[in-house]
């Protein structure tokens, strides 16, 4: 069939407004939301859409994030398309309910403008909240700019509602750095978006005509099999995320998948990062390339499920790699995403020198020159020929 590509309109939007516009575009039925900095403007924008009659949704004003997720679960359980958003302490408060949402296999979508965790209180960004929530059985996607926030939230509904997946999806991005920065964003026609993500309730719902019991008590003879179903769903999501990304490209002209790559084809070294840092990394790659360093980059879009095979494929013949993580671990000398990569490489019997960098904690300013510096370190570690044991805490006053 012939398709006409009309001129698309670009709007100046913050990451948060892009998230709200995406939720409107997919025509969500229920929004259960509790404000928290830096997520609040999502709640405000969605309230505005509902108040103006631009979005026909039930906006539930809850008294906490625990209740926000509880209301979202209840709404999804009857077959509604549900959206919510939170971060940091709010994400921690709803932690218990995150497992209920994924365990009940309800495809709720949540925006998470990632923010550092207390104490001490920080309203600024890092990914410690997302990392703390990433083992809750949710699909965790990470956006690197406002356009990706909009695009990934639309895709999140299609991924989560896929009958082979049926899992909740969170779309994370740097708080403030992305949530409050104006960027040009192409907003697609709502009608076209709704055609791309039609409402199909593929999950078992609560219905008085056909009563069921959700989330019953199960004994040791049953629990394991039910949780294994979730393991399989997450594995299925690997293909679904790539497929939805390709379909999105066909329809809207922007390609997505489990990860993003930049200049990897002839690269000898790789820099791996995610979120807003990916944009810094790409600029640093260009600078280093000008100096003759053959560096490429991987930007991780899907933190869960983790794109093991795709990462191995890229890294296996490289001289060294560096991970720049915007999250901390305590008590083990790796950072979260670096650890995932190390585990993956060991399993696939790939041994290459690497270096682990932590940066941007509590929104410590990351400069492009810092990424250039990490690339230099990566080259050095390749010369040394074995992985660097100590983490580089970049930007730290020492």
């Amino acid at each position, binding site marked *: 069939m012939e398709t006409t590509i009309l001129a698309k309109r670009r709007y100046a939007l913050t990451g948060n407004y892009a998230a709200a516009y995406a939720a409107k575009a997919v025509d969500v039925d229920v929004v259960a939301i509790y404000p928290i900095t830096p997520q609040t403007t999502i709640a405000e924008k969605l309230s505005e859409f509902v108040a103006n009659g631009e979005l026909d949704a039930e906006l539930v004003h809850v008294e906490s994030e625990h209740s926000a997720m509880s209301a979202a679960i209840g709404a999804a359980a009857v077959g509604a398309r549900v959206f919510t958003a939170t971060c940091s302490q709010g994400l921690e408060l709803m932690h218990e309910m995150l497992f209920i949402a994924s365990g009940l296999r309800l495809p709720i979508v949540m925006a998470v403008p990632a923010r550092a965790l207390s104490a001490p209180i920080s309203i600024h960004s890092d990914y410690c909240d997302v990392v703390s929530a990433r083992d809750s059985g949710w699909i965790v996607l990470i956006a690197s700019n406002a356009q990706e926030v909009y695009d990934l939230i639309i895709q999140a509904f299609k991924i989560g509602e896929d009958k082979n997946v049926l899992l909740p999806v969170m779309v994370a991005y740097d708080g403030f750095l992305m949530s409050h920065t104006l960027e040009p964003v192409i907003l697609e026609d709502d009608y076209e978006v709704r055609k791309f993500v039609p409402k199909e309730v593929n999950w078992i719902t609560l219905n008085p005509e056909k009563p069921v019991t959700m989330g019953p008590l199960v004994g040791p003879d049953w629990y394991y099999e*039910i949780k294994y179903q979730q393991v399989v769903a997450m594995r299925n999501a690997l293909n679904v995320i790539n497929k939805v990304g390709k379909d999105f490209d066909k329809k809207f002209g922007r390609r997505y998948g489990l990860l993003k790559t930049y200049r990897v084809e002839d690269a000898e070294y790789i820099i791996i990062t995610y979120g807003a840092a990916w944009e810094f990394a790409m600029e640093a790659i260009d600078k280093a390339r000008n100096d003759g360093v053959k560096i490429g980059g991987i930007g991780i879009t899907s933190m869960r499920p983790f794109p093991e095979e795709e990462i191995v494929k890229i890294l296996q013949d490289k001289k060294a790699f560096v991970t720049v993580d915007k999250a901390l671990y305590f008590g083990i000398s790796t950072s979260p995403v670096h650890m995932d990569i190390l585990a993956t490489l060991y399993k696939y019997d790939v041994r290459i020198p690497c270096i682990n960098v932590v940066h941007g904690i509590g929104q410590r300013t990351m400069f492009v020159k810092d990424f250039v510096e990490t690339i230099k370190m990566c080259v050095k570690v390749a010369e040394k020929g074995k992985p660097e044991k100590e983490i580089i805490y970049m930007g730290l006053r020492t």
Partner: protein
Amino acid sequence: MTLPKWYEMPLAGTILEPGNTIKIKTGSWRTFKPIIDQEKCTRCRICWVYCPEGSILELEKPYVTSKGKKFNITYEINYDYCKGCGICATECPVKAITLVREEV
């Protein structure tokens, strides 16, 4: 009995057959057994309302007390499911229900 495999079970362990807990007789959990004194019972229905397991049976069974008071209904306990929680005995306004330790 062979239990179903992971792919043979409804997603998330959802129970598709309403009321199937009737298959699990919970009476064996009981330590104390409630016994209704039909002489004292005023048929107020409070135990029937409060029982969390629906184990109080309201039967169309006439009863005449020793003083000659006639009742058209009788309350009895379904010991197949009564867990012996004692709520009925606590709530009974005329103390017509007593808890007696189960004999093994």
